[in-house]
């Protein structure tokens, strides 16, 4: 999940989710970065409103976490 965590981290801090930033975060976390996966991540997230995606999907999360 580190690629996704990196994206979420950048989303939370308000930074742009681009190749450079994702790589920077992953490297800071000591991860060996796979360029292809970074590219795929960026491509997949390009048109996505993360806030929206989380809200739409996360109904189960708090309940499950509380369980």
């Amino acid at each position: 999940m580190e690629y996704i965590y990196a994206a979420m981290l950048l989303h939370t801090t308000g930074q742009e989710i681009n190749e450079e930033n994702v790589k920077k975060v992953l490297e800071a976390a000591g991860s060996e970065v796979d360029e292809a996966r970074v590219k795929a991540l960026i491509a997949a997230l390009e048109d996505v409103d993360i806030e929206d995606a989380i809200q739409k999907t996360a109904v189960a999360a708090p309940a499950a976490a509380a369980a």
Partner: protein
Amino acid sequence: MPHVAEWKKDEVASLKKLIESHEVVGMANLSDIPAPQLQKMRRSLKDSATLKMSRKTLMSLALNSSDKENITALEEHMDGQPALIFTNMNPFKLYKILEGSKTAAPAKAGSIAPEDIVVPKGDTAFKPGPILGELQKSGIPAKIEKGKIVITNDKTIVAAGEPIPRDVASILTRLEIFPLEVGIDLRAAYEDQTVYTSDILTIDEEKTLADIQKAFTQGLNLSVEAMIFNKESVPVLLQKAATQSLNLALNAEILNSKTRDILLARAYAQMLSVAAEASAKDENAVDDEIRE
């Protein structure tokens, strides 16, 4: 037949004619059917079957005079108030129709209970009075509650196959429980050298339905298991493939249009979960946004 009255000869001849002209000849018992009900049944059968009541001896004569092989075996099934039924429909179907047209009737002293007769628990329409004693005497658990006679437990008062005692019959009728069935009771039916008795003629439609569903399920199971493609198995296989693919994509964290939202939400949910545990230790460990 030297001393046989003319009308009897005519009746035997007419019965014989009916026997010869129908594929199926049934032997029924019409005991206990009130006349109006019998009229009604006769009318409803009109297009599909002919019902003829006659004396036992005349029916025997007619059966014995028939050329149909083995048809005299029907004689063994003359019970009560016998009648012959003539039809061209499948004897099983005839039986089904006749059974379906039976109606509930009040208990009669001495009649055999066709199945367990149960007095259900619950309120009765009776005000307190001598009937309470009668109920109790028949073995029905009854008591007075809020000014009414109430039956406290379900009670099987006559077991299947047992005769109904006189006092029980009267109680049942007063309780408006009608445990008997009246109607044309088809004892046996002849078709093509074979006499089918009522036990054979009984069709279990529910079992047939269940068997159909079982056959379909088995066919589907086999198709899926053996990967035989047909329009029933392919949707199941597609679903299987789609499920497995989705599982793989999510478990391998491969982002695409189908998995993206789920994976993002998963990260978020995991973050919340970790945050919840961290803040349980020290609420300053997390920021205000999460604490809300």
